[in-house]
């Protein structure tokens, strides 16, 4: 009993400082910033992949125009959806702002939908479908969509870890003391129906 209340002599103070350091890091004092960084890295991956898709679209639209210029409606839809998605300013604060995040997600989903309709329309043009340039673009687009879904899933997982850390013990202690500026992040609502090709009536 006496040794806990005892005012420590000289060598004890460094000992306590070292112990405090080790114990604090053991209490997960670093977890919130770590998970935050990891989620932000995953978020920039998501952005990269969406950007990659946006970069592919002008070429794709041009190629399709060469064979199917009469499909003006669906081509315009794609171009407009792309423009709308690119207009949205996205930065690190987007992930903690539900309204901005929803705006981003909706715009990208609209572009996904428009692209799906374009690819269905293309089925009616055998010449275009056998065009090497188009095949290359199409495979890149498929690959990018796949990368987007992987990046989204990685992001969802790391946000889940981060948000859980903010709300559970011992993270909740640090969240309410040291890391008050750290807010929970938004995540994608998985809309499986968007992944399916849309049905188009001719």
């Amino acid at each position, binding site marked *: 009993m006496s040794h806990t*209340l005892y005012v420590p002599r000289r060598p004890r103070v460094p000992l306590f400082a070292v112990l405090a*350091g080790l*114990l604090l890091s053991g209490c997960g004092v670093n977890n919130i910033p770590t998970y935050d960084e990891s989620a932000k890295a995953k978020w920039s991956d998501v952005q990269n992949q969406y950007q990659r898709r946006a970069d592919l679209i002008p070429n794709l639209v041009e190629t399709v125009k060469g064979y199917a210029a009469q499909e003006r409606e669906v081509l315009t839809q794609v171009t407009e959806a792309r423009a709308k998605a690119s207009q949205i300013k996205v930065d690190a604060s987007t992930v903690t702002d539900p309204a901005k995040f929803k705006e981003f997600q909706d715009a990208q989903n609209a572009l996904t939908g428009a692209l799906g309709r374009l690819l269905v329309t293309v089925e009616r043009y055998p010449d275009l479908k056998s065009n090497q340039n188009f095949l290359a673009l199409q495979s890149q687009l*498929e690959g990018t969509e*796949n990368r987007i879904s992987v990046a989204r899933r990685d992001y969802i997982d790391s946000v889940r870890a981060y948000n859980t850390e903010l709300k559970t013990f*011992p993270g909740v202690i640090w969240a309410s003391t040291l890391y008050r500026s750290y807010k929970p992040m938004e995540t994608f609502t998985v809309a499986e129906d968007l992944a399916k090709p849309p049905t188009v009536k001719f």
Partner: protein
Amino acid sequence: MLCRFRAAWDRVILGVLLCVVAVAAYALTFPELTGRVVDDAGILDPSTKAALERKLAEFETKTTGQLVVVTLKSLQGTSIEDYGYQLGRHWQIGQKEKNTGALLVVAPNERKVRIEVGYGFEGTLTDAVSKLIIENSIIPRLRANDFAGGIGRGVDDIIQAVSVDSEEWKARAKRRPDDEPSLLDVLALLFFLFVFFMIVRSVARQDRGYAQTGAGPRRGARGPIFIPIPGSWGSSGSSWSGGFPGGGGFSGGGSFGGGGASGSW
């Protein structure tokens, strides 16, 4: 006594529940990485398999890239794209620093084939190149039920595509963000520097205290600090990959992000 037994029993139940959750999160089961050709579906005869193994081993020593052929009994209800990247990550094909790994996945029962490309190969083995290899080299042979021919030709083409100016892409693969020092490393360093500084300062203060008065500790002395002791400490959080059991001795820690192409026949 009974109470302690109950507590221990509760802990066991909790442990079991956690295990169940962990398994449920994984959902997919993966075949064991037994070699450079994993013929889970059993569509390759031993001599073809041995020849492929030799070819892939040679490729690995020459280029430091890693290519693994896998045939699957079942995709377990998911798409080949989904299964492919998770399998690549699970096996950690490719070197950790460069992520130069690729998988040729064949699922004969679903009639699907996919080239899954690691981050480091995405520059040379692009989606378009992968698609061409699948459509032109692999699928025509698989349609004719020539699995050995289709897979063999696919492997040749992938090796050729990847071997072209691999030096340039090696540099690019190194720039993956995963390999950069994380913020945690910096924070940990700063924290320890801070602790070190505190120690030095408190020691210095006390020394001065002793020197001036010659009496016991005055200013530097404070009451003991009480901190709850956690169950474990020192979880640094930095990624230690390459620790998967059953890695067959050559899974290098490479990662995958969904690059590549698929086809069906």
